[in-house]
């Protein structure tokens, strides 16, 4: 059943992605001021959305783990955070390429840029910590705590960086932030479609990661059982 969902979602995501790529690369006209580089927005913005949402959902799963002490929630939190980190890095890399073209530098130390980078560094620390702890329950506990600290900290970073006089990011353009008028619907709609395509792929990745976590936990259990019974001999 789970395999079928994975395959189905992957197929939908891939089909959407191909169709979107066709629209984005061949269908849409160039933007007046940015020329063709503006197309990065179709991956940059959904990448950031999925990344930040993922960190948030990962935090929620960590809290549920701390309440319920069920390792499945920990596996879910880890999988989601890992995938979210990948998308957040996409956001940073595409943003950097766009910045080179538009601002003339690869890295502008712009407020949101720095905030996202710090966020990524914190969650890289989270994933490194997971590798450093062998005992599953201890790993789950400690990483859940780091996730909570990291997310609270991200909020502080977000606030602090707003006050640092370095904002040069374009303001919000999407209709749900501005109420419309900043971006032509012809250009805006493919962005949502691409966000949907990438979301499908993100969910597929999370499901595959969860399966890996399940399998590795099972192997771990078998190894312990074997070890215990061998000792008994």
């Amino acid at each position: 059943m789970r395999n079928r969902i994975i395959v189905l979602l992957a197929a939908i995501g891939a089909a959407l992605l191909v169709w979107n790529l066709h629209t984005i690369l061949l269908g849409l006209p160039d933007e007046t001021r940015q020329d063709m580089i503006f197309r990065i927005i179709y991956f940059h913005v959904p990448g950031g959305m999925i990344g930040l949402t993922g960190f948030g959902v990962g935090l929620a799963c960590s809290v549920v783990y701390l309440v319920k002490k069920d390792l499945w929630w920990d596996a879910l939190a880890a999988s989601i955070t890992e995938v979210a980190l990948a998308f957040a890095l996409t956001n940073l890399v595409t943003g950097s390429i766009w910045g080179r073209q538009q601002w003339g530098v690869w890295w502008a130390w712009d407020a949101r840029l720095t905030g996202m980078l710090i966020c990524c560094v914190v969650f890289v620390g989270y994933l490194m910590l997971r590798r450093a702890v062998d005992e599953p329950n201890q790993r789950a506990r400690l990483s859940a705590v780091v996730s909570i600290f990291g997310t609270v900290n991200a909020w502080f970073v977000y606030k602090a960086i707003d006050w640092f006089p370095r904002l040069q990011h374009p303001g919000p353009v999407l209709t749900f932030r501005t109420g419309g008028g900043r971006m032509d619907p012809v250009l805006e709609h493919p962005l949502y479609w691409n966000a949907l395509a990438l979301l499908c792929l993100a969910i597929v990745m999370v499901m595959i990661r969860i399966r890996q976590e399940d399998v590795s936990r099972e192997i771990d259990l078998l190894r312990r059982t074997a070890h215990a019974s061998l000792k008994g001999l």
Partner: protein
Amino acid sequence: MKTTEAVAELEISRPVSAPAPSLIAQVWTIAGKDLRSEFRTKEALNASIAFSVVILVLFSFAFDPTSDQLQEFSGGLLWLVFSFAGTLVLNRSFSRETQNDCLDGLLASPMPASALFLGKSLANYVLLMMIEIVSLPVFGLFYNIRWARQLPMLAAVLLLGTWALTVIGTFFSALTVNLRIRELMLPMLVYPLMIPALMAAMTLTTVLLGGVPITASDMIWIKMLVAFDVVFTTLSVFLIDTVLLG
């Protein structure tokens, strides 16, 4: 026999029903123990102070130490020194208790983990402030900065910023105490989490070292430091049980 003495003897003879010491007394005991053992060897304190002087010397090669522009990033430099030298103290806070299973003893005592955490934080706070009191004049002396012009406000910023470093550092010292690669994990986790507090402290310190009083627009950073201290102290006190006991 006087009544007070009789009561005192009664209490000693009935240890089971003796009231548990208050949280403040417990925190105080732990802080006192940590400070006493540190002052007997002075290992971490000497190392951190020496290290902070080394960093201050290294800075002089990174840029022109006689330049007037130094003023513009003096606060940043100073807090880098504090956070690097401070982590030498903070990192050891819990790991030094692993010898002879002292940590297990502390956790088995009838004292909540939060008291242990707060006590250790308090001791670390005192040590960090001592490092700062030494390295601040040295910094002023090396780089020709008249640091005492806004002393009361500067002291307030130091007190608030140092508590932020202390809380994060002590908490993660507890979190990583049983890890194989503790020394590698700690800086990776601690420095990114200190960033908001360091940003605020650096901005404020730069202003104050320039001899300018803090304006209304800078007050937002003070508020931010206070909020950071309150939020992360609360979080740590709530989560320390999860980290140490499970």
